[in-house]
């Protein structure tokens, strides 16, 4: 961790309008949950829909995308990354610091509201609130690492990230069994299933496989991002 890199990343992510934009995710989730809790009582299926489909399936990847790419892609795009790179600072340190900040923000804006929403709608029943919180923690970390990598390797990180999160995980994942297994969302679900009361949740991936895959993605993305950053070429303006 480099405290200066962390401070710059944090201010870049939370400063100005981006901070407000990030707030949309928890506010939306809490509002929907409050509305659901007030209107229809405590149905298991409704909680699964709101926390699973809306929270874990839609809001978390979008948040991860905004935070993960925002942690580095913005600086690469506008060229201000030069001020970090023209320093005797190991590149892996820049990446791991940025990743730590991105994960922290993703957790604060997704896992915490996920827990609050779960408790609000369903209390501690079946361990659902805790289960989805655990899923948000592991999936949030993996999304952050993946989207940070995209921010380093492509100038179209947001498009590539959206293609993965929405097209691959949501659309293709709904129709193709194999695709569902290669999805951070489903790996998170495997963790949720193991935390929740037996039989309350199901997932298509076993817990062992999910944990291994989550670790592989997070570690590989971090290593690759560090290597790519070390050889970052600033496009010639001529």
């Amino acid at each position, binding site marked *: 961790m*480099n*405290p*200066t*890199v962390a*401070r*710059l990343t944090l*201010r*870049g992510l939370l*400063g*100005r309008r981006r901070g407000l934009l990030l707030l949309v995710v928890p506010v939306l989730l809490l509002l929907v949950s409050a509305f659901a809790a007030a209107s229809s009582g405590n149905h298991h299926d409704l909680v699964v829909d709101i926390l699973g489909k809306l929270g874990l399936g839609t809001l978390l990847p979008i948040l991860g995308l905004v935070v993960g790419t925002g942690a580095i892609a913005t600086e690469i795009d*506008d*060229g*201000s990354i*030069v*001020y*970090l*790179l*023209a*320093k*005797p*600072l*190991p*590149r892996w340190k820049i990446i791991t610091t940025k990743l730590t900040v991105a994960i922290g923000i993703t957790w604060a804006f997704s896992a915490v509201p996920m827990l609050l929403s779960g408790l609000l709608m369903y209390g501690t029943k079946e361990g659902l609130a805790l289960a989805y919180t655990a899923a948000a923690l592991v999936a949030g970390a993996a999304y952050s690492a993946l989207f940070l990598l995209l921010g380093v390797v492509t100038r179209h990180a947001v498009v590539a990230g959206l293609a993965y999160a929405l097209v691959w995980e949501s659309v293709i994942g709904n129709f193709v069994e194999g695709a569902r297994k290669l999805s951070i969302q489903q790996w998170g679900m495997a963790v949720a299933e193991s935390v929740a009361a037996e039989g309350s949740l199901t997932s298509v991936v076993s817990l062992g496989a999910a944990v291994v895959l989550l670790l592989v993605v997070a570690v590989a993305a971090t290593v690759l991002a560090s290597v790519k950053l*070390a*050889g*970052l*070429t*600033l496009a*010639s*303006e*001529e």
Partner: protein
Amino acid sequence: MATITIDKVSRWFGNVVAVNDVSMSIGPGITGLLGPNGAGKSTLIHMMSGFLAPSTGTVTLDGAPIWRNQEVYRQIGLVPERESMYDYLTGWEFVLANAELHGLPHPGAAARKALALVEMEYAQERRTGTYSKGMKQRVKMASALVHDPAVLLLDEPFNGMDPRQRLQLMDLLRRFGADGRTVLFSSHILEEVEQLARHIEVVVAGRHAASGDFRKIRRLMTYRPHRYLVRSSDDRKLASALIADPSTAGIELDWQEKALRIQAVNFQGFTTLLPQVAQRAGIRLYTVAPADESLESVFSYLVSA
């Protein structure tokens, strides 16, 4: 004493050759990297600052490779051309962050000193996003100098600056050069380089066109053949009067343009001669236009010289 050595360096992007077999050595003092837009100056500076790998050849600082070697930044200060610099930070926060990133033992003191050097203390509490171009340039300089580097690389530092800011920056760079630092700046404007650097390196179309003392190169530029397009009330009469003088090397009657194309060997001699000859012969001059005064043509003359 720090020296950057570029040895047989080429760099291409796909099929486009941006830098073609360039070798040069940049030592202490101020060096101007001169060339028209698109000549490969930025590509060279990117390679010297470690942000671009040469396709072939090597770029080294005192023998150590610059590409993928973050340790060189202990010696290099970089002032990039682009303006983005964490607009949400104040000048003070920005320079301090740079000092911290260098791992300096007393970052606060270093930041204060650097801001004083560029005379920006008065605006250091303002956000850099609110700065004028000249102020940004000076704060960028402060961030590049905060670790007291031996080498300072500046990519088109005078772009967009007003004359007063330009003079201030030139003074500053002169001081660094006099301190024995290696200062390299790129520019496509002849006069800028002339005012600041005694030693220049000229690149044209990716090739190293000239190197050495500015006065020598300037002389080459002044005494090169100049071409003019001239229209007058009597082109033939003017042509015969001009060709008698040794400052005129050749004259052609261009029927389509209805004008004379004149090649002069001596720039000053010819520009004095032309109006005198016309006056004596009672010829009115309608057009006197230099046909090849663009920087590009001056540079291409240098390449062939």
